[in-house]
């Protein structure tokens, strides 16, 4: 028995005879224009993949520079003003140009129509437009960088950003304003698609959890982003005309800016993490051959996070002199929003129970996600707790917490998703050993980078410091060392995934033996996705259905 059962479920077709399908979405048309004018959601997903990867490595380069500068207590690599531009660019690019669009733009675009059995998203032209809008915003951000940079921090705090800096604040604000529209268009497209385009039999509770989490994230994009747009318009107007809507000297209220900004920017972190949670659900189910434990709870916890997520923004302002009673309410709501995330973690853990688990690369990334996100989430409770927040806020503790959630959570999930659906997107497998090595490297490097920052934070080192007291150097050096390992871990996938495009093994339509509709069609899928619209006649994550189907196919062929 033990010899028959390997420790992998990967089942590739016989490589000597296997071929990629003759016609698929990549080779359907040729030429640059066929890509730039495409309305195919899968091609747009690839456009997004290239662009978010590009911006990720630019943002990552800035992270590297920041960590290098912090090797020594004095600002000796770069001066303080340059350092400030570095962390501003790192924040703007990573948040607005990488984390927000990464999973929805790449995986969401690619998979939502496939998963619900549709030929495309509801509004293909809008989808293409959203990519162009994103690129316009990205280009403008780079323009702000090339013209001399911007040093507001990604939070654009007034009146600093409006009256006290002479860098390219308006350019940067407009860049983010424009990028926001890309996110709104994506959100509208996803919601309409999920509501109106599901194939026959695909009821709400037969939807993969990936769709639930994208649905919740889309709600946040649609309702939150416009408020950021208003805020940035007001900031730009105030700066252009020297008026004082946020300037107390002229009768304005700087706290109003904080309220408006965080009304978007807190939900934004759920925009970044929810799609990642969707990826984790798919991967864990597939590699433990089990339906997700408590599917309904996981689905509704996504919606609950989206709902509560809108009413916790003031926890970014606890020390800013807000009313103590409103602080009490917002702290309570913050505690409540932590619960759905805890539910998800335990549901994933218990999905493993009595499963039949294998440890392919996507699964390793997901384990990494669970560990890091648990730490990230629990340290969030520190910051949601009023009295604790006073000491911890604005220090490296916040930096560490945020990176644990966004990088340990969001980015790990993105990598899990890319590895999981790579064979579907390209039709080829990547080398398994080196990809596992990359997953482990990332996990170790990440912890080495950000665990010391928790300690730094409790010691009181404020964030955004170009220079710091010498007693904090040891921990900073540790962190920089970790960042080096982490950077290496992120470079690896770039290399072997590129390699796999030409030399990877042919994956066949369903290498992981997964149940989703996307796995029941060829890899890479044909342009029209489904020759005839499928009928969802089984429950989601139904591995028996899959086994029967496979058996039937074998018998018919045989």
């Amino acid at each position, binding site marked *: 028995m033990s010899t028959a059962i390997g420790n992998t479920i990967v089942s590739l077709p016989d490589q000597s005879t296997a071929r990629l399908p003759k016609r698929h979405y990549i080779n359907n048309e040729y030429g640059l224009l066929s890509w730039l004018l495409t309305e195919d959601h899968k091609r747009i997903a690839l456009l997004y993949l290239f662009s978010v990867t590009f911006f990720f490595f630019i943002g990552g380069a800035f992270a590297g520079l920041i960590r290098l500068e912090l090797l020594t207590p004095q600002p000796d690599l770069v001066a303080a003003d340059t350092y400030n531009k570095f962390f501003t660019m790192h924040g703007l690019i990573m948040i607005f140009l990488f984390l927000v669009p990464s999973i929805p733009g790449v995986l969401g675009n690619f998979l939502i129509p496939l998963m619900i059995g549709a030929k495309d998203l509801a509004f293909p032209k809008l989808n293409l437009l959203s990519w162009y809008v994103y690129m316009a915003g990205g280009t403008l951000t780079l323009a702000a960088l090339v013209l001399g940079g911007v040093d507001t921090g990604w939070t654009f705090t007034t009146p600093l950003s409006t009256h006290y800096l002479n860098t390219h604040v308006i350019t940067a604000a407009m860049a983010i304003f424009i990028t926001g529209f890309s996110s709104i268009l994506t959100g509208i497209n996803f919601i309409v698609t999920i509501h109106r385009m599901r194939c026959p039999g695909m009821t709400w509770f037969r939807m993969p959890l990936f769709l639930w989490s994208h649905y919740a994230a889309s709600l946040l994009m649609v309702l939150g982003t416009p408020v950021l747009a208003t805020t940035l318009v007001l900031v730009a107007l105030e700066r252009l005309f020297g008026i004082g809507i946020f300037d107390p000297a002229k009768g304005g209220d700087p706290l109003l800016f904080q309220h408006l900004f965080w009304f978007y920017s807190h939900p934004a972190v759920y925009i970044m993490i929810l799609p990642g949670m969707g990826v984790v659900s798919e991967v864990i189910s597939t590699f433990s051959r089990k339906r997700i434990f408590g599917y309904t709870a996981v689905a509704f916890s996504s919606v609950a996070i989206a709902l509560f997520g809108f009413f916790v923004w003031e926890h970014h302002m606890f020390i800013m002199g807000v009313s*103590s009673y409103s602080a009490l309410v917002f702290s309570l709501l913050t505690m409540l929003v932590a619960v759905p995330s805890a539910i998800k973690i335990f549901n994933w853990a218990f999905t493993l129970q009595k499963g039949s688990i294998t440890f392919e690369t996507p699964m390793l990334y997901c384990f990494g996600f669970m560990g890091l996100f648990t730490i990230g989430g629990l340290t969030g409770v520190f910051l949601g707790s*009023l009295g604790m927040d006073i000491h911890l806020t604005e220090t490296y503790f916040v930096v560490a917490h945020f990176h644990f959630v966004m990088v340990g959570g969001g980015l790990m999930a993105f990598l899990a998703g890319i590895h999981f659906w790579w064979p579907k997107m390209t039709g080829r497998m990547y080398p398994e050993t080196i990809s596992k090595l990359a997953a482990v490297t990332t996990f170790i490097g990440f912890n080495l980078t950000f665990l010391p920052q928790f300690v730094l934070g409790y010691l009181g080192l404020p964030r955004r410091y170009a220079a710091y007291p010498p007693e904090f150097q*040891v921990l900073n050096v540790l962190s920089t060392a970790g960042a080096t390992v982490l950077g290496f871990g992120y470079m690896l996938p770039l290399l072997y995934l590129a390699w796999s495009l030409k030399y990877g093994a042919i994956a066949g339509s369903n290498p992981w033996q997964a149940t989703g509709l996307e796995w029941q069609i060829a890899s890479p899928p044909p342009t029209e996705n489904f020759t005839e619209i499928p009928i969802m006649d089984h429950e989601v994550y139904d591995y028996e259905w899959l086994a029967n189907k496979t058996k039937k196919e074998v018998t018919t062929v045989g």
Partner: protein
Amino acid sequence: MGLSPVLWQFLVNWLHNASLFPAEASTIAPYTDALYFFLVLMTIFGTTLVAVLVVFFSARYSRQRSPVATQIEGSTLLETTWTIIPLAIFLVVYVWGALLYFRIYNPPTNAMNIYIVGKQWMWKAEHPGGQHEIDALHVPMGRPVQLTMISQDVFHSFSVPDFRIKREVIPGRYSTVWFEATKAGNYRLFCSQYCGTQHSGMVGWITVMTPGDYKTWLEQSTSGQSLAQNGERLFASMGCNSCHNGTAAARGPDLAGVYGSKLTLTDGRQILVDDAYLRDAILNPSAHVTAGYAPIMPTYQGQLSEDGLIDLVEFIKNMQSDYRVQQTLVTAASGESAPTTPPQAAGER
């Protein structure tokens, strides 16, 4: 915390000596640290639990040992458990944190007051006795100190990690924070809200002194003029005394003893007169007209620096009678030279 004090001291000092933990130098610090240790234990417990579950299930139900998965829909009992237990823990944290918040932000009534002005990129401390400090603050040990803080330009944040206190210093409004230092020594002061190019240079030292040393320091560093005295000169030179002089013909309300009283405004609102009210009334007088008076006071927005405002506030705060104000009027009327105002009192320092 039920932890024995000896054990507590041992733990905290050990961590501090290993440079993993800030010094506990205020009465609040142990309370904050207690919650912190609880939260750290919660995090370790939670993470370990998840890790153990994942590792155990992975080992027990790996494909070799468990070739066929058993499908489970879920379990209401289990799911309720892991909804309720985290919720309960989080609620404990919530209540604990809220109590701590009120402890940190509600000053005791006997606290001594020091003014702090933040500006790009320095901290100015102004003691009521007229001692001025830049990027430094001397305070006595064992006595509650309340800081009334304001920013002259952008958001700053007054952070003293060893005291576990921090509060945003905001332009246009006073914010306060208090502490009671327990150990003599020097402690780092940071600006923790990003405030522009030299943000990381906006740091300083808090020096905690024994009451005796503090008294000596106060005497040696006095500028000869208390804040209230500066305020008195400003009060005359800005012409405040022509209306606010408590005479029968005065066009403005009498300010003697007004601090801390309840005032009725023309729009019927009842207002407690505190530092913030006085500052607002000088800058935006028409929104703060005392009932029975005409809205004729001009605004002093742009004419007084935050330091000047603090001087005035401190003067009005300590004004027990109108005697001296009326004296200045008499001096002015009799053609003798009015008390001269030192130029730095009104302008930038």
